[in-house]
């Protein structure tokens, strides 16, 4: 599979206004390989370096050190070859001109890419229909709601049919249904494209990243902390699988289960009112569960309840970053 984006030890420093002669490193030694034809997520808290990375890859910012190649072209000196094949949509964007209608604004942006008017208008019509915005085609954009405006921005990103698309918080400001439609549209666009399309997505919504991204990187303080498929990240970073097992506690000693093969960690508590003991097992894999059940049965105790806890991307994120994605500093764990 070809590589859409490759960065090697990519770093970007900004002058730190608070400390004279000191630099603030927004990105530090980022090395990534993003294959063609996938949705690649960038997850990280505010200020982690996601937008800086996107700005460099979209040729708006030069790196301080290292190298970034987009479709094989260097962002430093081959940006003119990169720009025709990329586009970007940012959440909360306020672009366009209020005096023009939705269709006119979209047409204007297609002209900047040299798309013939007839072809552009046909494409705009299709996309307006898909995004349920057809009836607003002739409405001036200063009359649009925030959500509708974001839909228009979204269409602007796709109307030029880019090879590589940067989506920076694209569902910001959209209601639940519109966000769901948007996610589906992006996924289908990548899946059904006649030539490979690559999407680089930054999002604050963990579920969005989990649902859409074939691969993702967790980034914090300008460094890549992990880079894998969501499934592997959940498995590796969150540490296997977890089960909660309830057993009637009379004469039951849970400690005998702690040393069974495959049990990574173990905790228990007594639920007096129910007369149960609740045990939480972290297991290296599902096969260890069979040994636990067998052991409990061999001691002639009955299992009241077994519940598997699915590790989420958020668990992996918290483990890597040390705090929740959606929270501020106060959420530090």
């Amino acid at each position, binding site marked *: 599979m070809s590589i859409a984006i490759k960065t090697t030890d990519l770093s970007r420093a900004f002058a730190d206004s608070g400390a004279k002669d000191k630099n603030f490193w927004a990105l530090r030694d980022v090395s990534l390989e993003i294959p063609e034809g996938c949705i690649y997520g960038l997850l990280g808290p505010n200020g982690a370096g996601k937008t800086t990375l996107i700005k460099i890859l979209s*040729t708006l*910012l*030069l790196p301080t050190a290292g190298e970034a190649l987009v479709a094989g072209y260097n962002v430093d000196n081959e940006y003119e070859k990169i720009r025709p094949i*990329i586009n970007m949509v940012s959440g909360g964007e306020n672009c*366009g001109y209020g005096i023009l209608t939705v269709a006119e604004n979209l047409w204007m942006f297609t002209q900047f890419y040299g798309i013939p008017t007839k072809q552009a208008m046909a494409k705009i019509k299709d996309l307006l229909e898909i995004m349920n915005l057809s009836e607003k085609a002739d409405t001036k954009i200063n009359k649009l709601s925030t959500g509708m405006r974001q839909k228009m921005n979204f269409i*602007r990103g796709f109307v030029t049919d880019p090879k590589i698309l940067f989506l920076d918080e694209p569902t910001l400001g959209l209601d639940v249904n519109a966000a769901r439609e948007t996610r589906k549209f992006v996924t289908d666009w990548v899946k059904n494209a006649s030539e490979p399309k690559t999407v680089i997505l930054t999002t604050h919504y963990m579920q969005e990243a989990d649902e859409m991204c074939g691969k993702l990187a967790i980034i914090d303080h300008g460094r890549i902390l992990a880079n894998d498929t969501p499934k592997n990240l959940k498995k590796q970073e969150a540490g296997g699988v977890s089960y909660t097992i309830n057993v009637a506690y009379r004469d039951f000693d849970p400690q005998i289960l702690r040393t069974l093969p495959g049990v990574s960690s173990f905790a228990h508590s007594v639920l007096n009112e129910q007369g149960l003991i609740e045990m939480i097992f972290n297991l290296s894999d599902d096969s260890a569960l069979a040994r636990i059940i067998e052991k409990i049965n061999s001691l002639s105790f009955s299992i009241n309840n077994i519940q598997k806890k699915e590790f989420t991307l958020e668990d992996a994120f918290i483990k890597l970053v040390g705090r929740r994605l959606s929270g501020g500093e106060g959420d530090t764990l």
Partner: protein
Amino acid sequence: MSMNELIKNLRGIWARAYVRIVGVNREPSWLIFELFFPLLPICSFAFVYKSMNAPSDYLGFVILGGAMTAIWMNVLWGMAAQFFWERESGNLTLYMLCPMSTMAVLVGMALGSGFSTFFRVIITFMIGKLIFGITLHVASYFWLFATFILTIAAVFSLGMMMASFFLLYGRDAWNILTVFMEPVFFLSGFYFPVKTLGYPLGALASLIPITLGLDAMRQLAFKLGPDTAFLPVKTEILILVALSALYLAGAKYLLKKLEYIGRREGRLTLRWQ
């Protein structure tokens, strides 16, 4: 530049100009703000000349100069400062991102502004002419029109060069524009023949193309025009051509240079400066 590149840039120029051309039709308030209000200072100066029993051609000088202020105002606020607003709205980011040359954006802005300004100047002048009963003695309609178009082209080329600075600077550059407004109104001789300033100051003022354009148009449109000439019309036209080329080349150079600095320093997408 390949044919494809040229077509792409021409499409971009038209699309950016379209915003301004359409804007004129969709915002009729400009009739008040850009026609009625500019007539007020014109009237003030015209009444001064009238009370002094000055020849009616002097009233014509004032009306032409007053009408031409629209060009300078448009260059300052509609061209140079426009990049500031484009950055605030996020459009500048998208301009930088697209494959069209940034110069095409500027040319589109200039053409759109030039188009609307062209009509504003003519309408303001015609209204002033009607109110004060000015008689024209046009030496050559062709050269008068050509000088008018050339002046617009030269002034907007200067505007394109000034706009480049807004890639890097925010409100600082905006303040500089404010400083440029009144001194330029004075130096360019909007309300009096620039010859009055003397040659050294007139030569300095000639760096602003509107100075020479206005002087040449007065010579071509009024009987007393040649008596107050700063330089011969042909010389002024040649200098205007040279200034247009110089400022256009300057805009192209600065745009590329400042875009690079903007990318290096991260200022292209910086808002709220």
